[in-house]
């Protein structure tokens, strides 16, 4: 407790952590995104009414769905990678390889979802 924060935001953004740092940042953004979405979703389904209807229109927009599916899929796959490596710390040696595997799983699955969501959005 009582730590000193001695790194500025700009310096933090310039930190060159490469692959693992990117997954760290994306994991936080995706977690926050899901947290805010799920909270709003539970509250609106509880309250209903005009505000609920307005927020439902936002949820159904294709851009929101692309963002939310990114959050869910990335957080799930990256979280599984973190869990496996943390529970079997011997695998830490292969951290970067694990992150490549992670992207190799994420990109095709997310890519297919992007094609489906966008073609549905254009088609309707």
């Amino acid at each position, binding site marked *: 407790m009582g730590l000193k924060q001695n790194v500025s935001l700009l310096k933090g953004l310039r930190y060159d952590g490469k692959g693992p740092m990117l997954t760290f940042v994306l994991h936080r953004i995706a977690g926050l995104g899901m947290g805010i979405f799920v909270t709003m979703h539970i509250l609106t389904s509880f309250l209903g009414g005009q505000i609920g209807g307005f927020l439902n229109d936002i949820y159904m927009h294709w851009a929101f769905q692309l963002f939310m599916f990114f959050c*869910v899929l990335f957080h799930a796959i990256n979280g599984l990678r973190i869990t496996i490596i943390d*529970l079997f710390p011997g695998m830490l040696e292969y951290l970067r390889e694990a992150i490549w595997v992670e992207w190799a799983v994420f990109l095709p699955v997310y890519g297919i979802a992007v094609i489906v969501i966008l073609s549905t959005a254009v088609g309707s």
Partner: protein
Amino acid sequence: MKNKPLPLLKRGLNFEMLMWIFTRLSALGMYVLILTAAVGALVMGARTQMNIADVLRWSFMPNTTHVQSTNIVAIDPWAHAFWKTVASLTLLVATAHGIHGLVVIADDYIIKPLGRNIIRIISILFMLAMISIGLYIIWTS
């Protein structure tokens, strides 16, 4: 280089360490719960050829309101107490995992002990509120 591991009690077995373990195990728990609901949706929705978006919507939270707008024949199997229990477990595990995640993020920016305590009190109240609202929605819908 091989170091001899410290005995368990000297490794810092405290609340934060237990929550660190909980975060990992609850991730695996959510995988199990979501896959259970996904299998259930595939079995129950097979007759009406439910599409993957509706299967996923059910998987992430097996609550009847998530399938009411689809072309299902009968709501009864979807409204079974088993699915309400799975939904409740998903809610409890996901809320605890998520709120702890928010506290971890907040701790990186709020560094004074007073601020951290305020964040913890707000988080606990927020968690209790969301769990009550969520359970109410699951068991009354």
